[in-house]
């Protein structure tokens, strides 16, 4: 039920989505360039959530593999129903050879049920050569490597209105303190420094995740995600205190945040009559800006990386799609190795819409400066972690009006009560993490 970048926007439509995507799931594409390579005559089944333009681009990647190996690859889209579709296929004894999963939790579950094939030594070597350690760890379950991350998204991007920044004499900041200074420059020029759309809490949880990953580091982040440390931990206090320095400053934050939807907050920054100069969210904001139609991404709508808090190294929160294999045969292994190689991503990258976590992909191939910058931030990050609220039980991290989302809204409205906020988060987490 989740595609990492947009699922929250679609929650109310989930019911309709299931129906639509079940129908979409029937669409099947066959690429027909069966050549005469090593695996001529083999047929591989590949499934992923992608449809439409993404499906066409991924099929181009698979076609490159067909040409290289001689195997025939059939692609099927399972839409948003990865868990259900794969579960049914596994039960029926006919899983695809390779599937792309958007949730690490699903990969871990399939791995612990014994449905996944560990990566071959050659594939592991390819991953080790091309990916940073964060991605290797994310593709592993209980110390065994199962997955190759093919596609990623970056949720550590701070988008700003270049016209307003220029008029105010503000520039992309060096770190969190400088960030507050730059926002004050914008506020001095008569515009709000930053617009927040906190009608529902998910943008706020993303704020917290970025600050927490920066201040506490990846290991603590993982422990908090699994509720191995309580939310009353001092590391959470540090992160909330940092957030409060911004959220508690009425001169910098546009008023009325709690009643503004996220798309509205984008319009407040990039619309025809901008009222604020900065907005934080993931790389998908580029889509919102383009939809709004008043600013041009790459020209007067640019982004900088989420500012480093307390001198931390570059860290990125995000999401992605991981390739896992269900069958133990040479052709499948060859496909996994191919997906781990820069050549596979380089087929899609120039077409747009793919941010590759593969370090050895030639970033010159990205179609524009903004997407190149997003990809470089992602591969350049020393720490990468998945969006925490996607990894926690949905009663805690994914329910409007409750848990993580709602408590962060309350914290935005009254950032002075850090201890009370931590206690509320701990209470909500304790109730949601029962096994």
């Amino acid at each position, binding site marked *: 039920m989740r595609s990492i970048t947009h699922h929250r926007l679609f929650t109310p439509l989930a019911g309709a989505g299931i129906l639509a995507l079940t129908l979409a799931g029937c669409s099947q594409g066959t690429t027909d360039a069966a050549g005469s390579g090593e695996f001529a005559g083999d047929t591989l089944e590949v499934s992923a959530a992608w449809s439409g333009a993404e499906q066409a681009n991924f099929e181009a990647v698979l076609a490159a593999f067909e040409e290289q190996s001689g195997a025939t690859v059939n692609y099927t889209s399972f839409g948003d129903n990865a868990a259900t579709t794969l579960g049914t296929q596994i039960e029926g004894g006919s899983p695809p050879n390779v599937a792309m999963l958007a949730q690490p939790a699903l990969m871990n579950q399939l791995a612990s049920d014994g449905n996944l094939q560990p990566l071959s030594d050659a594939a592991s070597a390819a991953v080790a050569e091309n990916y940073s350690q964060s991605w290797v760890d994310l593709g592993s379950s209980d110390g065994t490597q199962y997955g190759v991350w093919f596609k990623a998204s970056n949720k550590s991007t701070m988008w700003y209105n270049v016209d307003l920044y220029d*008029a105010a*004499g503000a520039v992309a900041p060096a770190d969190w303190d400088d960030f507050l200074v730059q926002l004050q420059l914008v*506020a*001095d020029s008569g515009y709000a420094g930053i617009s927040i759309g906190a*009608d529902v809490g998910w943008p706020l949880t993303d704020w917290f995740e970025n600050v927490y990953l920066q201040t506490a580091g990846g290991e603590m982040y993982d422990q908090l995600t699994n509720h191995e440390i309580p939310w009353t931990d001092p590391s959470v206090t540090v992160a909330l205190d940092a957030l409060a320095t911004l959220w508690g400053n009425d*001169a910098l934050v546009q008023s009325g945040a*709690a009643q503004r939807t996220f798309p509205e907050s984008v319009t407040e920054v990039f619309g025809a009559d901008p009222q604020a100069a900065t907005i934080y969210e993931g790389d998908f904001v580029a889509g919102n800006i383009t939809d709004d139609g008043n600013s041009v991404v790459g020209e007067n709508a640019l982004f900088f990386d989420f500012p480093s808090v307390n001198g931390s190294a570059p860290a990125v929160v995000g999401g992605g799609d991981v390739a896992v294999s269900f069958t133990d045969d040479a052709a499948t292994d060859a496909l996994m190795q191919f997906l781990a190689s820069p050549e596979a991503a380089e087929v899609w990258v120039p077409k747009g819409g793919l941010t590759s976590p593969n370090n050895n992909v030639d970033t010159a191939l990205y179609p524009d400066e903004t997407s190149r910058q997003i990809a470089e931030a992602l591969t350049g990050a020393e720490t990468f972690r998945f969006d925490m609220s996607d990894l926690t039980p949905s009663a805690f991290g994914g329910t409007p*009006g*409750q848990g993580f989302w709602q408590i962060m809204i309350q914290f935005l409205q009254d950032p002075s009560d850090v201890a009370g906020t931590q206690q509320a988060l701990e209470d909500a987490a304790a109730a949601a993490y029962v096994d």
Partner: protein
Amino acid sequence: MFLIALGFLAPALVLLAGLVLYPILYTVVRSFFSADGGAFVGWDNYVTMFTNDSTFTAIRNNVIWVLVAPVACTVLGLLFAVLLEKIKWSTAFKLIIFMPMAISMLAAGVIFRGMFQESPNLGVVNAAVVAVNGAFGGGDAAYPGANPRTDVGLINDNGVIASEAAAAAGTEVNFPLVGVRADAVPASAAQAEIAGTASAGQITGTVWLDVVTGGGGTNGQIDDGKTGLPGIQVDAVEASGTIAATTETDAAGRYVLDGLGTESYRIALPASNFDEGYQGVSWLSSGLITAVIILSYIWIWAGFAMVMIASGLSAIDRSLQEAARMDGANEWKVFSRITAPLLSPVLIVVFVTLIINVLKIFDLVYVIPPGASKPAANVIAVEMWTVSFGGGSNQGLGSALAILLLILVLPSMIINVRKFRQERQS
């Protein structure tokens, strides 16, 4: 004979059992099991239900709904029905009042959410409120939202920007301001300039926009590219609070306060220079959200009450009203002693139907409140959906809430059924 009756009843009975009885029984059973349905938890879900804050708010809100909405709808419906009877074009009016019933609840919710948006640029209600306020002279300040530069000895006291320290005649008091947009400065404004030296009995100074477009300059200093702010009222205030002198700044932002005595004065720029104006009411905030949703409900359902009552009105015996009028009763007496009692069966049906309807209210409460006030607007049906399907994934607790809702609706249903039976017997 019995077999024939059974034969005719069987299809309906099977359908009822499968679609009504079985779901109710299964919900009862499910409410005694844990979130994943695996473990029997006894009354735990019911205990959770009454001890948990969000459910408690939901129950409290449902009580408010039941107390307010059905009465308001029935009274309004009665008023419309009785009054519209007496005018021409009544069908047209009735059609208009009934119209909201034709709109889906979801769409009505979206309409109301739009109408009650906080920003006067988005919400029509606040736009009207602000426009009315503006007509009475609010919000026409020249530089709304301006603030003093920090750390230069100026304070912002409820919109009044003033010098922290008192100044004696013969000195200079400067006001570097920020937070004014470059395009909000009037075209007549010129480069800010240092005011001349103050002579005896004078205090001089400059009010300027302490921002250089494109950046640069030193904070608190008059640099090239910083404009003066013309037309700002400047007061010299005595310790007692009396205004000793007042003036306005010129195009370069300079002012001269003349005719001052030997004591010290606080130099203040009054709030009328910076008043942002009335920004309207925060309708969708936690405090008002339930009222707004109930209002939208009344807008929709008053039409239904009116149509029901009007049909009852057309069926009553007019000779009784005529007789009362002949006997000298005034119109109020006719209404309260004759018409209303004759209408009471219809009124009760309308009222009870509305109570049942209000207890189950879902769509409006789901659509109208923004996230921040969702918990404040919560009702049982929404809570039930949220905990079972909206992310909570706890169908045990959800079932318990469903049973609570059923129990709350039962008395009204029993009253309605009794009513129908009595009517059939009489």
